[in-house]
């Protein structure tokens, strides 16, 4: 066995950080709107946003592969702008954003829905804008949901396999993430390296989930 190459972990980390940051910005206003709207389109939007939870990753990966390819109108349009999403890190980010979307949206929306409505109304009566109300009143009061959304999205992105393999392939130092690297090690029967990689992933996931539960416990008992 050669010395351990940590590059797949770094790519996974970079992918998860970028995806989590972009998703926070994208999902936050939608979660806020969904928690407050009485629109008849709400169930439709919620169903579309939750699709990645029930869809097999290969189905999502297949459609993204078709969408990003130069044979599609969208792929052709991207190509005219010199944007190449297939088998690139940017493509991985876009695919991860779609795949992990509900994991950011749902905890945030449920946090906002459980918030005391009077608090939000009092902020409006204090002449505060929606933006100030969101960041100074709403978010600080749904900390457990916020932390859960960030950490679960991050962890879920690190653990992606099917979608990233189909959209990103396995290009060393570009799109080869840790989960794909493990799969390849098993394929060539390098079980020792696969064990080490898997153990790192296992411990990492456990620590992340432990942090979520410790934080939620602390928030619950804070006086």
């Amino acid at each position, binding site marked *: 066995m050669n010395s351990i190459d940590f590059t797949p972990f770094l790519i996974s980390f970079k992918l998860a950080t970028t995806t989590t940051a972009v998703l926070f910005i994208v999902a936050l206003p939608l979660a806020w709107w969904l928690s407050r709207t009485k629109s008849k389109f709400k169930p439709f939007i919620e169903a579309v946003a939750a699709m990645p939870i029930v869809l097999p990753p290969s189905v999502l990966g297949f459609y993204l592969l078709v969408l990003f390819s130069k044979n599609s109108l969208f792929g052709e349009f991207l190509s005219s702008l010199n944007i190449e999403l297939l088998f690139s890190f940017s493509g991985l980010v876009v695919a991860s954003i779609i795949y992990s979307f509900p994991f950011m949206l749902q905890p945030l929306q449920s946090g906002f829905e459980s918030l*005391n409505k009077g*608090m939000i109304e009092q902020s*409006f009566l204090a002449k505060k804008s929606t933006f100030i109300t969101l960041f100074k009143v709403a978010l600080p009061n749904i900390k457990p949901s916020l932390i859960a959304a960030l950490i679960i999205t991050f962890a879920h992105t690190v653990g992606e396999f099917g979608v990233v393999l189909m959209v990103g392939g396995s290009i060393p130092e570009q799109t080869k993430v840790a989960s794909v690297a493990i799969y390849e090690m098993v394929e060539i029967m390098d079980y020792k390296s696969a064990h080490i990689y898997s153990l790192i992933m296992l411990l990492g996931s456990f620590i992340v989930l432990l942090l979520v539960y410790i934080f939620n416990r602390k928030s619950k008992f804070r006086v």
Partner: protein
Amino acid sequence: MLKVDIEHENLEFNFTFNSNELVAVVGDSGSGKTTLLRVIAGLEEVNGEIVLDGEHWLNNKRSLSPQKRSVGFVMQDYGLFENMSVLENLLFVSNDIELVKRLLTIVDLQNLQNRYPNSLSGGQKQRVALARAIVAKPKVLLLDEPLSALDSKMRKRLQEYILILHKEFHLITILVSHDLKEVQKLASRVVTIDSARIKDILKINKEESLIKGKVVDKSSNGNSYTLAVELLGDIKIFSVKEDIFNKYSLNDYIDIDWSIR
């Protein structure tokens, strides 16, 4: 002057509150009292007209957002900002530190100013909510049972301060309360709401300690005589002496002491 003429699925209300007036709104649970306050604050959508001193808060063309209305509101569930201390709750609304400190002293919370709402009792939360509603110096103050969680000593003290602040800041104050003694002490007029409509408007004479109620039922059992009297939308049962019982018939009006709750 605040003119309110609204139609809502839970309330029809047409009434003009005079400048610097404190009006009590009474009625049974579910009669629409809280809805009225929420509509005035801009927290419920409704058709109609709300005009404050010539400024249209609501008409058939526009409805001002809560941010653009000058309203302080003590809600039944307080709506305190849980992530902020008592002091921060007030400073979030106004950075007039002198007024903030003065109001904290009035509601006797200066020693608890660094505590967070989840460590306060119901009465303490209610006092924070009252101070916070006033600190922005609103033109209209809405009080939804603002003193219900307080003991009688604190309640009396804050009643005095509500009157002082109401006068000092030239507020139009609308008070929802079930406490008739409190209503008599604070309000100059009482609006009774029943089944989502105004049933009665009563002017209060502060020198007068009696209020008229309508006898709606009579019953006697041996030496026990009771009258059921409708008083500002509520039915109160009184045990009375035989001569009083015989003096009044159904639908007669009877003088009741305000101090009866």
